[in-house]
C-alpha cells in the first residue's frame, strides 16, 4: 500500500508552497511534486491599464525583488516607446539591479539557508533559523543583515525608497545620480566586499561537510539558460540569450531578447499554479533547463571583475570541463555573484558618465508590442506586453525567474526525497533536506504564481490509497 507525505507549508522560502511525496508499498519515495498553492492573476488585471503604469504595477508582485520587475517592465515599455534610452539611464538601471542582486542573494543565503549550512540539516528546527544563527554565530548574522542593508540602502539612495522605488520609468529613470549620492554609495562598497569575501571563504570551508547533499540535492544534468553580454560575459541587465546543454556545449547563442518565444514554451500542470516553462525545440517536459546564479555562472565565459573572475575559476574546478550540476551549488554561485555585484557597482560608480543628467528618453507609444528581459536574482525575467492604439494594455505575459526552474525543482525534490526520505522511518532532518533543495533555488513564489500571503511550507506523506499518513507543518 503506497502512502503520501505532504510538507506544507515549505518554510524559509518566499511565498506559499507544499511538497507531496508519494510512497510505494515498500515505503520508498516513488514520486514527488512541488506545488504552488496560490493564485494572483497580475497578467489579467494589467489589461486595460495605460502601459506607463506597468513598471510600478508589475513590481507589486513582489517586495523582495520589485527592482527586477521594474527593470524588465521598463525595458518592455522602452520597446513600446520604440526608443534607445540614454546611456547613463541604462547604467543607472544596471546599478540598481545589482544592488538588488546583492540584497536578495544576502537574504537567501544568510536569512533563509545559512541555518541549514551552519547549524546542520539535522539541527533542532526551533533553532534552525536566523535567530539560531544569531545565537550561534552572531558575526554571520550581523554580516547577513548588514549586507542586505547595503543593497537596500543603495536602492533607497537611487530611487528614494528601499522597496518599490518609482524611479525606473519607461524611457530611462526619472532623476539623475547626484555627486553626493555617488559618493555615499561608493563609500559602502568596500565594507560590502569584505563581508562578501569572508562569506565566500567560509562557505568554501563548509562545502566539504555536505558531500552527500551536493551529490543528491538536485544533482542532475539539465540545460542552462541565461543572458550573457554580447562578448559572453556575466550579464544581468541586457545582452543576449545563451543556452548550454548538460555537457557544457552551447546549444544556442546570441539569441536577441525579443525572440524569447522562439526558444521558450510554457506548459501548465493541474497540481500547481506555477507554469512550467521549457526549451521549446526539445518539447515538454524534456526541455528542462535551469536559470539563476548557477546557470549564469555555468553559461558565461567570464565575470569581468577581478575577484569574481578568480572565484569563477575555482567554481569551475568543481566539475572541470562541464557545467556545475548540483543544485546545492546555487549557494556557491550566489555568493560569487554578490562579490561580482559589489565589484561591478564600484566600476559603474567611477564611470564619469554615471552622473550625467541625460537620463530619460521621451516618446509616446510607438509600438503595439513590447518585450523586456533582464536577469532577476533568481534567473531570467521576461515581461511581454501588447497595447491598443491608445497605449492601453490588451495583453501581458510575465515569465518569472522561479517559473523557469519549476521542472528542475520538481526533479530536484524527487531526487532528494528518494535519497533522504524513508517512509517507514520519517525523520524531520530528512524532510528538511527536501525543503533545503527548494531553498537552493531561492524560489520567489509570490512572483512565480503571483501568489499572496505569508511564507509557510508543509510536507505530507500519502499512501497508495491516497490517505495522508504523516504531515510536517510549520
Amino acid at each position, binding site marked *: 500500500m503506497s502512502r503520501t507525505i505532504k510538507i506544507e507549508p515549505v518554510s524559509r522560502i518566499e511565498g506559499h508552497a507544499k511538497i507531496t511525496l508519494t510512497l510505494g508499498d515498500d515505503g520508498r519515495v516513488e514520486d514527488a511534486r512541488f506545488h504552488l498553492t496560490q493564485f494572483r492573476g497580475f497578467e489579467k488585471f494589467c489589461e*486595460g*491599464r*495605460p502601459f*506607463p*503604469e506597468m*513598471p*510600478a*504595477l508589475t513590481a*507589486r508582485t513582489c517586495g523582495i525583488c520589485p527592482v527586477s520587475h521594474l527593470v524588465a517592465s521598463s525595458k518592455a515599455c522602452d520597446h513600446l516607446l520604440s526608443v534607445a534610452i540614454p546611456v547613463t539611464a541604462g547604467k543607472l538601471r544596471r546599478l540598481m539591479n545589482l544592488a538588488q542582486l546583492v540584497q536578495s542573494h544576502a537574504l537567501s543565503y544568510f536569512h533563509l539557508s545559512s541555518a541549514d549550512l551552519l547549524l546542520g540539516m539535522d539541527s533542532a528546527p526551533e533553532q534552525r533559523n536566523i535567530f539560531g544563527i544569531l545565537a550561534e554565530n552572531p558575526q554571520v548574522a550581523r554580516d547577513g543583515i548588514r549586507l542586505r542593508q547595503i543593497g537596500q540602502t543603495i536602492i533607497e539612495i537611487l530611487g528614494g525608497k528601499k522597496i*518599490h522605488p*518609482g524611479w525606473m*520609468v*519607461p524611457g530611462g529613470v*526619472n532623476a539623475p545620480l547626484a555627486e553626493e549620492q555617488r559618493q555615499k554609495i561608493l563609500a559602502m562598497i568596500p565594507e560590502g566586499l569584505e563581508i562578501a569575501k569572508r562569506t565566500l571563504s567560509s562557505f568554501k570551508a563548509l562545502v566539504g561537510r555536505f558531500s552527500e547533499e551536493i551529490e543528491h540535492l538536485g544533482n542532475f544534468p539539465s540545460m542552462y539558460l541565461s543572458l550573457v553580454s554580447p562578448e559572453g560575459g556575466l550579464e544581468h541587465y541586457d545582452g543576449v540569450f545563451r543556452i548550454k546543454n548538460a555537457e557544457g556545449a552551447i546549444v544556442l547563442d546570441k539569441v536577441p531578447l525579443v525572440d524569447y518565444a522562439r526558444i521558450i514554451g510554457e506548459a501548465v500542470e493541474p497540481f500547481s499554479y506555477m507554469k512550467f516553462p521549457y526549451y521549446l525545440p526539445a518539447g515538454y517536459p524534456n526541455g528542462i533547463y535551469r536559470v539563476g546564479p548557477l546557470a549564469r555562472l555555468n553559461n558565461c565565459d567570464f565575470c569581468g571583475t577581478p575577484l569574481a573572475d578568480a572565484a569563477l575559476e575555482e567554481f569551475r574546478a568543481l566539475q572541470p570541463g562541464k557545467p556545475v550540476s548540483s543544485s546545492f551549488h546555487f549557494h556557491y554561485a550566489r555568493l560569487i555573484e554578490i562579490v561580482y555585484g559589489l565589484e561591478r557597482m564600484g566600476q559603474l560608480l567611477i564611470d564619469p558618465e554615471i552622473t550625467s543628467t541625460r537620463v530619460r528618453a*521621451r516618446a*509616446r507609444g510607438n509600438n503595439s508590442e513590447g518585450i523586456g528581459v533582464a536577469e532577476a536574482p533568481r534567473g531570467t525575467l521576461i515581461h511581454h506586453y501588447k497595447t491598443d492604439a*491608445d*497605449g*492601453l494594455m490588451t495583453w501581458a505575459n510575465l515569465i518569472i525567474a522561479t517559473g523557469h526552474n519549476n521542472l528542475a525543482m520538481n526533479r530536484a525534490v524527487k531526487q532528494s526525497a528518494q535519497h533522504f526520505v524513508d517512509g517507514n522511518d520519517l525523520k524531520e532532518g530528512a524532510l528538511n533536506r527536501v525543503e533545503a533543495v527548494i531553498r537552493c533555488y531561492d524560489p520567489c513564489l509570490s512572483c512565480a504564481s503571483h501568489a499572496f500571503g505569508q511564507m509557510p511550507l508543509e510536507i505530507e506523506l500519502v499512501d497508495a490509497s491516497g490517505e495522508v499518513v504523516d504531515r510536517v507543518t510549520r
Partner: protein
Amino acid sequence: MARHPATPAAAPKVRVVTLKIDGHDIGAREDETILNAANDNGIRIPTLCYLEGLSEWGACRMCVVEVAGSPKLMTACSTRVAEGMEVTTNSDRLQRYRRTILELLFAERNHICSVCVSNGHCELQSLARACGMDHVRVPYRNAAYAVDSSHDLFRIDQNRCILCTRCVRVCDEIEGAHTWDVMGRGVDSQVITDLNQPWGQSTSCTGCSKCVQVCPTGALVKKGTAAGEMEKQGGFLPYLTEMRGNR
C-alpha cells in the same frame, strides 16, 4: 422704467454680519460663505470639490460644519454666513463624518494609490492622511471603469474620478468650452466629453489642460506619466479668475 446709463451703478449695499467660528468672533460680508469667512480668519476647513476661482458645488461634503441650532450639518463652501451664527468646524462628530466620506470615496472606485500616477501629489490621498483615514470599513465596490486614452495629450481614468466636477466647472466657467459634463445618476454618474464621445474625438476641447491641472486625483492626467509622476499646477486659477473679472 428707463435706465440712465451715464449714471454709475451704485455699489450694492452689503451688510457686515458678526458670527462665531470655533469660538472666535468674526466679521464677514453677508454674501460670503462660511468657508471664505473661515479662510479669511486663518481657520482651515478641509475641502475637496471646492476650488477658489470656480463656482461652489457642495458635492463632496468634506467641508461640513456644525451650525448651532441646526440639527443637520452644513457645507461651509455653499452656506452663507448670518448674523449671530455659531459655527463649529472641528469636532469628533465632524471628523467621523469626514473620515466616512473619504472611506466611501475610496470604496466607490479604484483608488490604489501605490500604482497611481498621482501618488504623492493627490488631494484625496492627502486628505485621507490628514483626516486619519487608515481603514476603509465599507466593502469596496470593485467596479471596473473605462480608461479613455484617446486624446493626444491627456487621459481620463474613470476609476480615479470622485465626481467633484472641477473639470466640468473649469471648462465651462474659465475656458468657456464646456467640453465636460456629467452623465447618468447616482453611482452610475460619470464625467463625459462632448456627448459621451471619446475625448480624442471631441470637437469642443481646446486641449488647454485646465481640467487636468484642477483635477484633485489621478483621474485626469498627462499621458506618458509613470506612477507618482503627475504633479498638478492648479495655481493659475485664482489669477485667471481675477484678471477676467466677471467677464
